[in-house]
């Protein structure tokens, strides 16, 4: 339980944050906790936390926090969601990934080595956020960790595969964005007419494949 910090966020929500150093383990714990809290609470998992919203006329924040602590203690220590693995074909570089060369340079890698590392293993979907269907995938190793671009682009094309801040992501739609664009996929990540609307969910795995 010492791995968790629980903060009230107003009278009708608490944020439970996993403070484990290991980012992958913290994410697995957050996903497992969110699963354990539903359907009793509205629980939204993120990279290393769970937002729990509740009716303040039914619950007090202290009671919700106690409830969270009890469920945390019941989580399996090696809890890991059994997500599906999605193969994501990517055209790297050129017009599809205008920042590939610059990103490789900044990382001290050749373009080939960057692509080889990006496609070397399946990565975990840690959270869907930022925009409908945008997956935060990783955590990437330090060798692929870059800060966001100094100046965000006003519009990034749909399907852009990007890296920044220790994650890789895929833009589900034309959106403003500050990540480094390294490639593009034809997969449609978000469709509001589909149920569920996203191709990926937190806990799934992504294997990038170079076309």
């Amino acid at each position: 339980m010492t791995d968790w910090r629980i903060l009230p966020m107003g009278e009708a929500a608490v944020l439970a944050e996993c403070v484990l150093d290991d980012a992958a383990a913290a994410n697995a714990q957050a996903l497992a906790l969110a699963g354990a809290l539903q359907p009793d609470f509205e629980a939204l998992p993120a990279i290393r936390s769970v937002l729990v919203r509740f009716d303040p006329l039914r619950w007090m924040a202290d009671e919700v926090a106690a409830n969270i602590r009890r469920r945390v203690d019941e989580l399996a220590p090696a809890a890991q969601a059994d997500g599906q693995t999605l193969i994501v074909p990517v055209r790297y570089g050129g017009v599809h990934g205008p920042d590939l060369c610059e990103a490789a340079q900044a990382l001290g890698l050749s373009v080939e080595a960057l692509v080889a590392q990006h496609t070397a293993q399946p990565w975990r979907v840690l959270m869907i956020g930022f925009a409908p269907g945008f997956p935060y995938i990783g955590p990437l190793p330090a060798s692929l960790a870059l800060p966001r671009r100094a100046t965000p682009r006003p519009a990034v094309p749909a399907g852009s595969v990007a890296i920044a801040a220790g994650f890789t992501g895929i833009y589900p739609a034309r959106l403003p964005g500050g990540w480094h664009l390294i490639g593009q996929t034809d997969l449609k990540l978000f469709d509001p007419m589909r149920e569920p609307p996203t191709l990926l969910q937190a806990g799934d795995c992504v294997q990038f494949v170079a076309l």
Partner: protein
Amino acid sequence: MLRVIAPGALCTVQDLGRAGYQRFGVPLGGAMDRVACAIANRLVGNPPTSACVEITAGGAVFEVVEPCVVAVAGADLVATLNGEPLPMWMSVYLATGRRIAFERRRSGARAYLALAGGVDAPVVLGSRSTYLPGSFGGLDGRALQMDDLIRPVPGRSQRDLVRLAGCAWPAAVDYTPLIRILSCQHARDLLPSADVASLTAHPWRVGAASNRIGVRLEGPPIRASQSRDVASFGVFPGVIQLPPDGLPILLMADAQPTGGYPVVAVVIQADLHRAAQALPGDELRLVWTTIGEATQAWRELQRLLALPVEEDDGTALAAASRG
């Protein structure tokens, strides 16, 4: 059924939004002022999940193309029926050919036009709400345009309709531009140097970039010496974030479900409808409160929303026939 003659600044179809879809990155969305939306629906006999037209800042004109019963709640946008004042907070029967207009802002920002039966639009991800940045929900994912038809969900007979007219709301909704907030440990931990207390020291001006996603608060910036990178976490309407420029952002209906800026305070849920009635240039004041007071305010608001409507006293029908 109504036809849009002029959409004014912005009209969209909104209901109570998409609870449960935030783990797909989908904002909650829905009416900015959920109180007015709920009351407008109650007045025309709709269930609370029905969609309304959210009318922002005035300039909107509609023509009745089939008899219907409507109710307007929320901002006072000088609503008129064929040029005569249209009573607000009351259900009104409208005959074919009448025109209703929302001429200009007198007070508030957003009015809600409920239609007996509920405004019809395809249900997308559990809601009829328009999400403009994602171009889905409502009418083809866009704002209302000239000549759009606002149809009721089919199923109500004409005789039912007449019976619905003339219901009045028995209590006033408090729109004082004073927003009660609760402090949040999050910013105290992440930005120990930030002078969070100054949130309540002066009024804030609503910034020009404010919209359905968030209200940007302009005033003396709250500077903080350092900010470490935070992993994105779940947020919701009412959260006040502090980006590096020191100008707080109050998240509203269409806010992304996750964010990475430190949270300096959270607006109590019972006061969100007040923030929803502010437009760029307006002033908002923040004031600290306690969890106990926030919960009591929420209880009172729920009691208000559960009040029985007052049955016809003849005013509404008289107003309708005058128009």
